């Protein structure tokens, strides 16, 4: 299948996940262990009513989805994946009103574990809103994905 075909299938897959849909996530890029997913600013996701800043939990959901997508797009990953561990460092509050864009890279993969790094930005490209490191399962062929 060509790159565009793969991208279309991956986009359909990610955007069909009920929680990703609920947050308005859009797949911007995928392939070879790298994924980029973004979501719009949404008043329903505000964590601090006094400042209008998005809740860290919503940023976590975006990061987790993006990391999982990066793992699934890696040539060494046969099928689905599940999070084993995910650590998020919050550098600063995301600016209210701006889209949040996450980019994840599966930088190493073994037969059982995938290692991922990710970062999230708003319109300020110089300083990330958050960074993440995670480990994910690599399913043996034929195993059900979790």
């Amino acid at each position, binding site marked *: 299948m060509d790159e565009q075909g793969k991208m279309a299938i991956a986009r359909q897959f990610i955007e069909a996940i009920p929680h990703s849909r609920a947050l308005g996530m859009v797949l911007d890029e995928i392939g070879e262990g790298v994924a980029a997913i973004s979501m719009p600013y949404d008043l329903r996701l505000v964590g601090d009513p006094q400042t209008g800043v998005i809740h860290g939990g919503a940023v976590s959901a975006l990061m987790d989805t993006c990391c999982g997508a990066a793992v699934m797009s890696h040539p060494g990953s046969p099928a689905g994946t599940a999070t*084993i561990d995910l650590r998020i460092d919050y550098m600063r509050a995301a600016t209210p009103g701006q889209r949040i864009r996450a980019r994840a890279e599966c930088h190493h993969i073994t037969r059982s574990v995938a290692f991922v790094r990710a970062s999230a930005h708003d319109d300020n490209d110089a300083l990330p809103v958050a960074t993440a490191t995670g480990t994910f399962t690599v399913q043996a062929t034929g195993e059900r994905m979790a």
Partner: protein
Amino acid sequence: MAPRARPEPVQVIKQRRDAALRALVAGVPYIQFLGIAFDRRGDELTATLPFDEKLIGNPMLPALHGGVTAAFLETTAIIELSWSLLWEEMEAGRIDATLLDPLHLPRLPKTIDFTVDYLRSGLPRDAYARARVNRSGRRYASVHVEAWQDNRSRLFAQATGHFLMPARDD
């Protein structure tokens, strides 16, 4: 020795504490979006996440979204930490809980980092969580949180987070 002051009527105490908890939780849109509620027994809080279709991350299993699990744990940790600060102020009489509303709350702690340990997949049913403040200093706090579904002893996820405490006036 002076005679001990008569304890307050139980309804007055309950009203004050429930009002404070409501002010803390009701004003956060994201908590309402996920549908998280908090049960209170004295100062102990239990968070509940009622199952909903929009929380699904894997439609084939189906299983809760890993991000939902992370968000549920982080919300529980922040509310527990904020509640422990608020409780102290309220019980010492420095805050009148009946005057609190979402826009007039003490500043919330900010998450510095949060690490989630996924132990098993979240099933499509209600989830519960409790957090424990392991250290609460002037500037930093460390909070551990556990989540389960059917059995309290079979956790499906746990997490540890560090938080920056709100600046104090003193």
